[in-house]
Every structure is written in structure tokens, then in C-alpha cells.
């Protein structure tokens, strides 16, 4: 199979080189679109809400209290290993991810993560697998995701977000809860990912 793959490579590259001929010089790209902008937290809240995420603007000292209000007492919550423990209320059962299997993650009532970046203009939070965000599967299988975002992590638009992110990390961009519009374009939340997304926005 290795030998065949190499020959496929020669065939494809040979055909492509023949197709473009001798030219092959680059073409300049004019980037006169907006690349920076003022960060507008109200816009982020508006766009997140428009996507049917639920937004809570609270001081950091009351994160645990806010989370307690969102979850029934004795709910089971998965958390990535580096999540600040002060964010978690005593009313819930905490399952730290030390290599939990998928079945246990899927059976949990929710997950709490931090974020790497949030994009105001599009209502997007981005997770990059840092210790306070954890593996990609954590924010995928439970039906409820609580994501804590600091104001300093919010950027105006997509270009600023990419500039802050590291391509070599696994990245998940989340804009509202899981959704489909495949049946008569009627929007339905939660096909496979979490049906409920809470964003706690800290000052």
C-alpha cells in the first residue's frame, strides 16, 4: 500500500504541475477588510442570546452560586482537571476528568469549562483544550454545557480570534447549542451535542 500511495502522489502532483504550466507564482491578496475592532460585551451577549445560549453576567465571586442555580441539587458535573475549584458549588457531585470513559461522561448531567477566546460579532466561544477546558469530548457528550468566559478573553471579530489561538491545539468553536435546520429549515436545538448552553460572562 505504501508503494501505491507514493505513485498516486507522483501522478497527482505531475498532473497539477502540468495543468498550471510554468507560471506558479503567487497572487497578491489585498486585506482591506476589518481585522481589528472595539470589543463590545453587550454585542457578545446579544449574539449569544440570539443563538439561544443563556447568558449570565456575574462577578467571579458568585460563579459557584450561579452554577448552583442552573443545576438541580445532587446533579453530576464533569469538569476538566484545571478548572478553578472555587467555581463549583457544594450542591453538585463533581466528576474530575482523570480519563473518564465516554459512558460516564455521557451519563453526566452537565459539564463546566472555561474558554480560550470569545467572538463578540458572531456569538462564538472557542475551547482550545487547555487544562481548564479539557478534552474535546467533555463539552460534547453531556446534554448541558456551562462555559465561563472572562471579559479579557472577548475579541471583536473572527480575525482577532484566530490571531489569539494556537493552530496546533485541537480547537472547538461553539456558537449556541447544537442545532439542525434539516427538516423544512425549522431550527431544532440539540441533535447530538449539548441541547443547552449557558455562558457565564465575568467582568
Amino acid at each position: 500500500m505504501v508503494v501505491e500511495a507514493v505513485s498516486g502522489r507522483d501522478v497527482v502532483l505531475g498532473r497539477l504541475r502540468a495543468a498550471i504550466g510554468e507560471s506558479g507564482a503567487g497572487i497578491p491578496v489585498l486585506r482591506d477588510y476589518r481585522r481589528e475592532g472595539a470589543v463590545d460585551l453587550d454585542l457578545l451577549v446579544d449574539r449569544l442570546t440570539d443563538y439561544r445560549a443563556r447568558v449570565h453576567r456575574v462577578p467571579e465571586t458568585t460563579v459557584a452560586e450561579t452554577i448552583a442555580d442552573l443545576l438541580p441539587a445532587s446533579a453530576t458535573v464533569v469538569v476538566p482537571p484545571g478548572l478553578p475549584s472555587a467555581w463549583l458549588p457544594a450542591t453538585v457531585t463533581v466528576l474530575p476528568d482523570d480519563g473518564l470513559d465516554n459512558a460516564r461522561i455521557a451519563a453526566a448531567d452537565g459539564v463546566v469549562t472555561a474558554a480560550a477566546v470569545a467572538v463578540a460579532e458572531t456569538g462564538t466561544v472557542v475551547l482550545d483544550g487547555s487544562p481548564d477546558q479539557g478534552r474535546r469530548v467533555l463539552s460534547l457528550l453531556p446534554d448541558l454545557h456551562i462555559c465561563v468566559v472572562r471579559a479579557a478573553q472577548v475579541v471583536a471579530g473572527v480575525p482577532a480570534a484566530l490571531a489569539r489561538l494556537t493552530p496546533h491545539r485541537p480547537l472547538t468553536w461553539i456558537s449556541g447549542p447544537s442545532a439542525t435546520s434539516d427538516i423544512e429549515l425549522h431550527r431544532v436545538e440539540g441533535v447530538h451535542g449539548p441541547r443547552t448552553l449557558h455562558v457565564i460572562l465575568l467582568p
Partner: protein
Amino acid sequence: MPATAPQGVGQLRGAEPFPDAARRALADPHLRRNLRHATATIRAKSAAVIAEVPDWEQLRAAGSAIKSDVLARLPELLEQVESRVTAAGGVVHWAADATEANRIVTELVAATGSDRVIKVKSMATQEIGLNEALESAGITPVETDLAELIVQLGEDRPSHILVPAIHRNRAEIREIFLRAMPGADPALTDEPVVLAAAARRYLRQTFLTTPVAVSGANFAVAETGTLAVVESEGNGRMCLTLPETLITVMGVEKVVPTWRDLEVFLQLLPRASTGERMNPYTSMWTGVTPGDGPQAFHLVLLDNGRSAVLADEVGRQALHCIRCSACLNVCPVYERTGGHAYGSVYPGPIGAVLSPQLTGIADNASLPYASTLCGACYDACPVKINIPDLLVHLRDQAPHPRAEATAMAAAAYTMDHPALYAAAQRAARSGRLLGRRGRGLPPPLDGWTASRDLPEPPAESFREWWSKR
């Protein structure tokens, strides 16, 4: 060197010419109602979110320029992708055509020992007929996008790039689920939320127990080796995250040079495509990440006729396409015929220019004529593909109907000879007196007027009026 997509494999050629297939679709009022509702809804959503972006035209121009740049130095960028993906722990394969790509994927799946794969919606794998190839090797492919699942369970074909089941309404979807979804609740209603929940229940166990996934890719960044998939439902995240092995099949034109280039396309694609500011989920990965996600990653780089498209300096801009489907949603022809009439996985205006180039014009000769040349597709295209120009360019290459060629040759000769031209005008006026005005031409020229009005000849020609002055 024949570099077009091979016959007998994949889904780029229809069983019949566009006019025949279109005639049948036009006779289905139910289909036309579903399509009209869907395309009008997406058009309105898309227009609203594009209007929010003050620099939309600058983004379109940048997107178009980046794609031109990519095509001008594609071999070098692909080699860069290969080296970055390999350095990050992935394995890169090169497939000259559909047959080779199917064989590579089938062998990779077989090597894992699994007899089932979960699939993310992907145009490239539909194009090459991967599902059929896997099935003939005893491997079950499970489509996990809701619309693709509806199409798969209904033993149907997709009819739209973005919303493959756009031609089905909720009642039809309920019937398909009851008939073909194992374990479907007989009390299932046709509410979209109930149908989506049924799909969630049906697929969850499959997601959790299948060790191999196959996806496409929206973008691959040459500079970093990063792959990106945009989606809405989370089925993509399931496939890209849970299995041990991930196989991504990607057309060679999907590469972008730099990480920064994603800032252009991640703004253009969702707004043009689904009419959202951002799609609910975008996943990006570079090779493998220890402890997170698939630990084996294979990237299959697919030609399958793309080098033939690239060789045509006018036609190559069809490879700019980012599969947003905006051109379908504004096309008056697509809105009435639906996607099946185009006979290819790429329907609508982009299909009418891409499919004939991928297969060679002779195999899809009717498609460049499947358009009114109204230009709405060019205006809607987020990467500024001049589809009307391409249609005319391809019509020139397509074999013309004999009667049309004869008539055009006769018209050219007549117009070159003033006396003949004057006589022809007088003859046309007698046609007016015979009561044929506004109708069609007689056979064999009626092919021309079957879908066009013949202009009514004036009572007096300009030349006659002038000679009297």
C-alpha cells in the same frame, strides 16, 4: 493524459440529460413547493446577516484572491500540507481518482478490523461513491448528518449541497423513519423536534461504539497542517472526536496557504451558506493530539478530475468553490427543478460548471445549458466565481444540437448578405400574418423555442422605414 474523473464510479454523471430529468421534476408540484419554501427562507436569512457586515465586498475580493493564489501554486501548497500533517503524526495519501480514493479508504478501514464507519457529511466522499465502495467491501457506512441520514434511510439521493433532504417535508421524513430506522417509536409524530430526537437516540450508541470515522474537510491550512470542518449538529464533532481512527478525504483545492486565511473564509462561508453569523460548531485539528481525539489520522488528497479543471485557465475558477450553496438558493432554474435533475452530487449553477469540467464536457453536455444566464449566482457567490461567464465558455465547448448548428450557420450567412437579410425579414413578417407570432418555430428548430418566446416580427423593418425617409 486523461485526467478527468473516471466513468463507472462515483456520482458526477446523470443517467439522462438535464432537460429530460428537469421535465419530470417540473411536473411535481409538491417538490416545487418544498423547494420554493426552502430557497426563499435561506435567501432571506443570508441577505440579513450579510447586510450586517460592512466589509462584505472586501472579504469576497480577498476570498477570491486567496483562491486564485492557491490554484496558481497548488502543488507546492499540497506538499506543505503533507509535510505539516506528517510532522503532527498524521499519514497523507494521494488519490488520482475516485477508484484509487475508494481503495485507499477501504483498505484503511479494513486494517482497523471494523465493519462499520461513521461519516460526517462530505461532498468529496459522495462524489467518489465511497459508501457504495465500502458496502461492496462488507463495510457499513452510517451517515450521521440528519439530512444525509434521511437520504440514506430513504434510499434516496441528496438534492442540495447544504440541505440534502430539502426536497422532503416533515410527513415524508416521518414515514422514512418509521419504515427504515431500527427501533423507531411507532408513536413518532412529524414535529421536527421529535424527529430530531429520534435521530439522536438512534445514532448515540453508534457514535460511542464505532472505532473509525470518515469526514471531508472545508479547509486545510498549508502553513500549519490544520484541518477544519464546519457543521451545526455536533454529529461532526462526534465523528471527529470519539473514534480511534479518523480518515479525511479532501479535494486538493481545499487547501489555503496560511492560518490567517481562515479569517476570510470563516466569515464568508456561514453567512453565505446557512445565513448564520457563525455555524454552531467548527472543529479544527492538526495531526493527532495525545490523549484527545483519534490517535490515528489519515488525510486522503483527491484529484478526480480537478487537474483537468485546473488546466483550463477560464474554467479553473470553478475550483474556488467553498460549497456554500448560495448559488443554488438564488437560481431560478434550481428552484424549479431541484437538485436531482443535474444528475451530479454538485447541483445548481456551480454543478452546471463544475461537473462537466470534472467529467469532460461530453459526459455532461446538457449542464452548461441548464441556466438562464441571469447572473444571480455570480452576485451571490462569496468567492466571486463568474458562473455565467463559465457557462458560456463551456457551451462553446459542448457539442451543439445539429439543427441548432445548421440554423446558426444559416443565420450567419444571411446576415452577411444584405439582400438575403431583407428577404428574410419580409419572410418573417409573413409568419406574423400567418398567426405564428409569439409562438415557437416549426420542427426541427422548435428545440430553440420550446423554452424561449420567439420575438414578434415588426410590421415594418428598420431598413424599410429608413428607405422611405
